[in-house]
């Protein structure tokens, strides 16, 4: 976590200062960055004035990395080195990619990690690294535009992203040097943008059809709280599928053979997308297919024809809508508003079908391309601490059930889908052999009953179980899902109190050490001295600890601490402060730990006081009730 705070030590911002934070919509087709500037949230443009950054990355033979429109323009001439829609590859294994294979021109190579890489003219890159290039470009844009370093970012993900896809996104942000405040679900971000705009209350459906993903969420809005009741979707359904359907139609019309080369395929896709966009406003469009500079086919496509071609794609969105309503326990008539998000909702037939389904005219007031980034920036502004009194709170859910592999390859669900997060579930295991000291746990995500039909998230190996007679060890494994939807697993042998060591093998992700390795190589030019970087990280971490603790003490030390207790805390704090000025990274780390140890009772008291304060408003009514 601390790896990326490379701000100059001692630069910690005073609380009253406006802290620069952004919301980033890392999209399949386009990405955006937004920020709250003097009270209003807006997306940030590049020097040419464009807000959308095409999510396209090109790696040239000269080791140059090009991101955005310029890369996009090269997609047809240099398809193998120009990666589009990388979001579809996030958190996926080689097998998944092969199933997408016929649509993707890239050369996938198996790498030493669980995550496949793409072979390009300047080397092999994983989807995480490719995404981080997009994020780096947005970060640079934001820092130029806002005139300073960012303290953090909220990055949006499709609500339907599984844990591996979320982790991959967070890893990409780390590689891009961003401090991630939160991974926020795209529909929730959109609801924030709409909710704050209109101050609305009630039950709202967010219909989010992007380039490559589809999400639908049902939210209940009440006094600044955005409570997600249910979410459903398809992480591989979007405008890209419409483009492919239209491209296939052009292919048939133009008699292009299905084994045409990549640049022809790319050209057809570009025609398809352009036709789709034109047909949102016009009733027909003329398409021209060229080869070696000569027109080989020219014809027209009407909106009615196109609607027919893409209807199967659009209809696929309705099943998740039904499921989300059912899981939320409400019916269509309870819905107060339907909000359209994502560029693909510009297609008129999408609006028609969704409007018919819910029986309400969908809202399209905020630009569907920008609404997610805007919502994310509003939350980033709050999480940065710029609005200490804001009442807003986002309560999200886990989109897919978490389960464990049991005997016979079956799945036992431990956290059902649409459970509000954060959530923790503990499960007890025992040994089946005398003296057994290790045990394997396989965590999967999905709704099916057979392990092979779910997504494998990770295999955990518990070691260091004290040797005992078979069946007498009681190993409590706790599965903690945080507010980002990321999983953390801890284990404890209950008889002995021994904390087992857990080794995580992500099924499709990068391990901690791989991330560190990537970071190291990316910093090689900027910072040759690894030791110096480690020291800086610890100093930043220490500063963060000191700042947070001092502000807590100013807040409530008088109420919560006796003189002796306060003295102890102050002493450990002053030791940390002086150690921080030295150059021993490990010692600083130890001193931070010391402060935490001394403060653990204080932190607990603070939390309890928060709870008491929250409940105090109810005490009067409680007396009446009893």
């Amino acid at each position, binding site marked *: 976590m601390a790896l990326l705070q490379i701000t100059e030590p001692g630069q910690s911002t005073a609380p009253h200062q406006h802290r620069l934070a952004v919301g980033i919509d890392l999209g399949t087709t386009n990405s955006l960055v937004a920020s709250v500037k003097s009270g209003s949230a807006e997306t940030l443009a590049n020097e040419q004035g464009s807000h959308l950054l095409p999510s396209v990355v090109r790696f040239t033979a000269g080791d140059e990395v090009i991101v955005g429109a310029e890369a996009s323009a090269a997609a047809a001439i240099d398809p193998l080195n120009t990666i589009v829609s990388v979001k579809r590859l996030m958190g996926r294994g080689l097998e998944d990619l092969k199933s997408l294979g016929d649509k993707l021109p890239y050369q996938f190579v198996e790498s030493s990690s669980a995550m496949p890489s793409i072979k390009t003219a300047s080397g092999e890159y994983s989807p995480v690294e490719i995404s981080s290039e997009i994020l780096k470009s947005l970060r640079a844009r934001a820092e130029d535009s806002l005139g300073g370093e960012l303290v953090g970012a909220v990055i949006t993900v499709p609500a339907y992203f599984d844990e591996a896809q979320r982790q991959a996104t967070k890893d990409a942000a780390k590689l891009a040097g961003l401090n991630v405040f939160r991974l926020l679900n795209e529909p929730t971000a959109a609801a924030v943008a709409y909710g704050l705009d209109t101050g609305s209350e009630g039950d709202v459906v967010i219909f989010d059809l992007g380039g490559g993903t589809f999400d639908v969420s049902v939210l209940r809005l009440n006094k600044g709280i955005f409570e997600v009741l249910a979410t459903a979707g398809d992480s591989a359904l979007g405008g890209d599928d419409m483009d492919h359907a239209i491209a296939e139609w052009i292919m048939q019309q133009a008699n292009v053979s299905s084994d045409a080369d990549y640049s022809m395929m790319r050209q057809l896709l570009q025609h398809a997308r352009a036709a789709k966009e034109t047909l949102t406003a016009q009733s027909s469009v003329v398409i021209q297919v060229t080869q070696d500079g000569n027109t080989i086919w020219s014809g027209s496509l009407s909106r009615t024809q196109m609607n027919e071609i893409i209807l199967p794609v659009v209809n696929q969105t309705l099943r998740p809508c039904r*499921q989300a309503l059912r899981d939320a326990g409400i019916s269509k008539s309870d819905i107060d508003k339907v909000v359209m998000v994502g560029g693909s909702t510009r297609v008129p037939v999408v609006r028609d079908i969704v409007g018919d389904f819910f029986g309400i005219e969908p809202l399209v007031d905020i630009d569907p391309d920008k609404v997610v980034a805007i919502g994310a920036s509003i939350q980033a502004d709050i999480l940065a601490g710029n609005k200490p009194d804001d009442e807003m*709170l986002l309560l999200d859910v886990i989109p897919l059930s978490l389960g464990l592999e049991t005997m016979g390859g079956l799945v036992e669900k431990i956290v059902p889908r649409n459970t509000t997060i954060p*959530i923790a579930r503990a499960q007890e295991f025992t040994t089946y052999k005398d003296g057994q000291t290790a045990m394997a746990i396989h965590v999967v995500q999905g709704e099916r009953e057979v392990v092979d039909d779910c997504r494998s998230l990770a295999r955990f190996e518990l070691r260091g179980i004290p040797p005992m007679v078979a069946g007498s060890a009681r190993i409590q494994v706790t599965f*903690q899902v945080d507010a980002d939807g990321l999983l953390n697993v801890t284990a404890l042998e209950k008889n002995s109190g021994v904390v087992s060591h857990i080794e995580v093998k992500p099924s499709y992700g990068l391990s901690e050490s791989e991330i560190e390795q990537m970071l190291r190589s990316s910093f090689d030019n900027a910072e040759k001295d690894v030791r110096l970087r480690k020291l800086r990280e610890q100093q930043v971490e220490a500063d963060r600890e000191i700042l947070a603790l001092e502000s807590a003490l100013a807040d409530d030390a008088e109420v919560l601490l006796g003189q002796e207790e306060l003295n102890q805390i102050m002493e450990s704090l002053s030791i940390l402060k002086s150690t921080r000025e030295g150059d021993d990274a490990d010692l600083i780390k130890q001193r931070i730990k010391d402060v*935490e140890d001394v403060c653990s009772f204080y932190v607990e008291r603070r939390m309890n006081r928060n709870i008491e*304060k929250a409940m105090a408003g109810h005490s009067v*009514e409680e007396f009446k009730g009893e």
Partner: protein
Amino acid sequence: MINEQNHFSLFGLPVSYDVDKTSLTRKYRELQKAVHPDKFSNSTEQERLLAIHKASQVNDGYEVLKSPLRRAQYLLELNDIVANDNATISDPYFLMQQMEIRESLESATKNTDPLSALDEVLDQIDAMFNKLLSEIKSKFSESEPDYVAISEVVLKLQFFNRLKSEAESQLASFEN
């Protein structure tokens, strides 16, 4: 279960089967405003971890307390009675009901209009489920609740719950 603190006391509620849903929801929201990790984005790492832990507890408690079945199970648990999932029920009337529903579920899937047929079965299940719930409610309201008798009803509710999720997944697969 991760609960050092009893769910009822966490929500400042008396230990009772009767829970006022409106006030439960209001307290849930107040509690989350106080403990949610997003409220600690600038705090120490230690405090953020504690917030994740507390917010998980609040979510877990809310889920248990708002569901009539899970609330009953939880109250049994507090009274050291475990409604065993693998136990069998010998009540002949109940067994007959179960069989009938299984049959109508089966035939619904072969119906020409499986969606409405399944909806009907679900309505049937809901009706029986709600009848058992009111039975539980009245048993809990007795001055000396018979927990063993309650646990038998809870067991029946669990059976209906399973039928319900089967019917729902059938419904979902037909909507596909």
